[in-house]
């Protein structure tokens, strides 16, 4: 050791080397933990910190009526936000609040107060700013003001068909009606923009950026015709007002296909009048035509008659002796007007709507076959129209414990069972289209990115033969046009139909002072273009029978629809002379 240095490592150097070595090992272990073991976790944290994801809203699809007119559509808008962090610079914020106030026509002090109420994050100051206005604001490039694309739902027809079309909430989801029932189709797939951001969360220019375009929602075309819907709603509202009724429904269908052309409800609410804070809103926005059940009353006598004719038990000229009442078990059933008509044909029984005749027919048919026919007509089963909340109806069957022979008698004239207005009209349609029970439908097509889906009419079954259907159709024609001054008559047109009047059921039985007046019919009788069901609930203006209340509404509504559809009169016009 010439220079005095030892030729071996001293203990100090060994110690230092050991410490450095251990430290290096620790570093390598930690590096391995971070880079290999916990890689996914840290990669995610880094991504969250450095990458921001913006959602691009997808255009919600339109709801069209049968003519292609939009009942609901969407337009592009902007939502305006203030970046609270940037607005901590008071001088710039004050200037920006003034500029923003000028653009939005808002109070600058309120804007400044809102924008500086927090230290970080975005403060929403305006939702659904019109697109052109948003673009103009964007070009101003106001300090600390951000715009985000959004959309606004527009209902060009206002409250028309409100319960059917529905409404969209602030979150862009359908709340009721078609907006809710077909939400998955109408809602598109939102797009995403993933970009690297700086410490303030602002996108870094020319940095990594991935973008996925939004996919627009599909369009749903309804079978509803806005003009027919308008006619139905105007006449329903007028009738409810005229007869001081509690509520009412009108359904208009194409009996050949089952397409629903109009479904009017009173009371109802739509985009203009719906108050989302109203606890009773559900009463005004549900499709009562499919959700609410009622006892159809004498309209159901047509089904009873059809069953008896189809079984060959009677024909239109078969007779029975109407003594004004009939005793079933311990119950005495009487005619609605307490009349006794003696020898009465099937045609007369329907024209006069005699309860005793229905009981007579039900005794000929028998319980087993009667309910078999009623089920074939679609009673007590949902129609599968495609609207939510559909009721399936109530009907006791002979094998139910609560059933008694009186049920058969009362069911024969439409009491003691319940059905929705849509079920009743669907069943009556059987007599307008050769004995076919058509499934009602309200959506004619769906247009999505994956293609066009068109709905075709569906024949569910044939409850009665074509001959029976024609015979009952003729009987219904005689009910209207065979009776002088029947309220459902329409000058120039052959009408077939049947009135119905039923007492309102209450928990203790029936309310003898309240009725449901209804009428179901189709027109023109020989080649029906439309079938209509009118139902007026609890009229209180003095008139309360189907023939008094519902039949005239049918005549007015159907006449207007015939005019709109351009259907030529089917017979020479008759009526009262109004000459000058």
């Amino acid at each position: 050791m010439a220079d005095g240095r030892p030729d071996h490592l001293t203990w100090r150097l060994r110690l230092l080397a050991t410490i450095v070595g251990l430290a290096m090992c620790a570093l390598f272990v930690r590096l391995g933990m971070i880079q290999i073991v916990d890689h996914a976790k840290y990669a995610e944290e880094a991504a969250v910190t450095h990458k921001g994801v913006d959602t691009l809203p997808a255009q919600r699809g339109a709801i069209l009526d049968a003519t292609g007119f939009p009942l609901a559509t969407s337009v592009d808008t902007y939502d305006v936000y203030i970046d609270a962090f940037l607005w901590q610079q008071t001088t710039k914020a004050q200037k920006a609040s003034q500029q923003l106030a000028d653009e939005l026509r808002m109070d600058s002090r309120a804007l400044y107060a809102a924008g500086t109420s927090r230290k970080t994050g975005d403060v929403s100051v305006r939702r659904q700013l019109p697109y052109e206005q948003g673009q103009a604001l964007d070009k101003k490039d106001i300090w600390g003001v951000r715009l985000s694309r959004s959309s606004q739902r527009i209902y060009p027809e206002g409250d028309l068909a409100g319960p059917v079309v529905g409404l969209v909430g602030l979150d862009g989801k359908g709340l009721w009606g078609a907006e809710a029932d077909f939400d998955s189709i109408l809602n598109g797939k939102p797009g995403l923009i993933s970009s690297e951001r700086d410490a303030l969360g602002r996108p870094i220019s020319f940095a990594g950026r991935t973008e996925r375009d939004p996919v627009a929602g599909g369009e749903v075309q309804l079978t509803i015709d806005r003009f027919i819907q308008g006619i139905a709603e105007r006449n329903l509202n007028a009738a409810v007002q005229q007869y001081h009724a509690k509520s009412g429904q009108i359904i208009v269908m194409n009996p050949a296909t089952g397409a629903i052309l109009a479904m009017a409800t009173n009371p109802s609410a739509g985009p203009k009048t719906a108050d989302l804070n109203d606890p009773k809103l559900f009463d005004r926005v549900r499709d009562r035509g499919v959700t609410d059940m009622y006892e159809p009353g004498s309209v159901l006598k047509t089904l009873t008659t059809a069953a008896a004719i189809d079984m060959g038990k009677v024909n239109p000229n078969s007779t029975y002796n109407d003594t004004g009442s009939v005793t079933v078990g311990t119950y005495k059933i009487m005619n609605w007007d307490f009349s006794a008509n003696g020898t009465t044909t099937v045609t007369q029984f329907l024209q006069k709507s005699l309860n005793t005749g229905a009981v007579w027919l039900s005794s000929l048919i028998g319980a087993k076959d009667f309910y078999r026919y009623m089920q074939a007509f679609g009673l007590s089963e949902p129609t599968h129209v495609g609207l939510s909340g559909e009721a399936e109806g109530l009907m006791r069957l002979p094998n139910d414990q609560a059933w008694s022979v009186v049920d058969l008698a009362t069911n024969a004239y439409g009491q003691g069972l319940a059905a929705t207005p849509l079920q009743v009209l669907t069943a009556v349609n059987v007599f307008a289209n050769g004995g076919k029970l058509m499934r009602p439908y309200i959506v004619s097509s769906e247009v999505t990115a994956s293609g066009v889906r068109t709905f075709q009419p569906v024949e569910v079954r044939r409850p009665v033969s074509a001959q029976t259907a024609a015979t009952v159709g003729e009987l219904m024609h005689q009910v209207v046009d065979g009776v002088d001054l029947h309220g459902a008559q329409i000058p120039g047109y052959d009408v077939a139909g049947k009135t119905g009047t039923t007492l309102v059921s209450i928990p203790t039985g029936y309310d003898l002072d309240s009725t449901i007046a209804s009428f179901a019919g189709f027109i023109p009788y020989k080649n029906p273009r439309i079938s209509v069901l009118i139902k007026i609930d609890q009229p209180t203006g003095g008139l309360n029978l189907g023939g008094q209340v519902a039949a005239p509404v049918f005549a007015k509504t159907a006449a207007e629809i015939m005019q709109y559809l351009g259907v030529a009169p089917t017979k020479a016009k008759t009526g009262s002379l109004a000459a000058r």
Partner: protein
Amino acid sequence: MATLPRIAARTPVRLPSANHIPRTLLAALALLVVAAVGLLQVMQTSQAATAGYEFGALETDRRDLSAQVRSLEAQIAQSANEGQMRELAMARLGMVPATPSVGIKVDAAAPSRVTLPERYVVRPQPTPLPPLSWWESLLRFVPGFK
């Protein structure tokens, strides 16, 4: 024997062989290639950036135009609102709802008896005739006019 004069030995000119390219030339060529590739890269990147920018601008234009189309469609639909059209037709143009024309031929007496109970028969209310206008009144004085 005559001898040819011996050619003075000269240093042969060494032509560059294929296997022996001067390093400077190689370096120059390499630099040229690198520069060309770099230039190509820059040009491509520049063109791609320009195209991307133009594409982005066109995409923005497309979105704006689509938004305007949707907005205009909504405006048209709102203008064609059935209720509004009805109101305009009646209030501004003085139109009235069409009523079906009724041709009447009465060649028989009214039925003496109706089959529905009297109290339930809905009888049409007689419509009062509107008063004749002044010029219609004058027409009554014209011979042959009724």
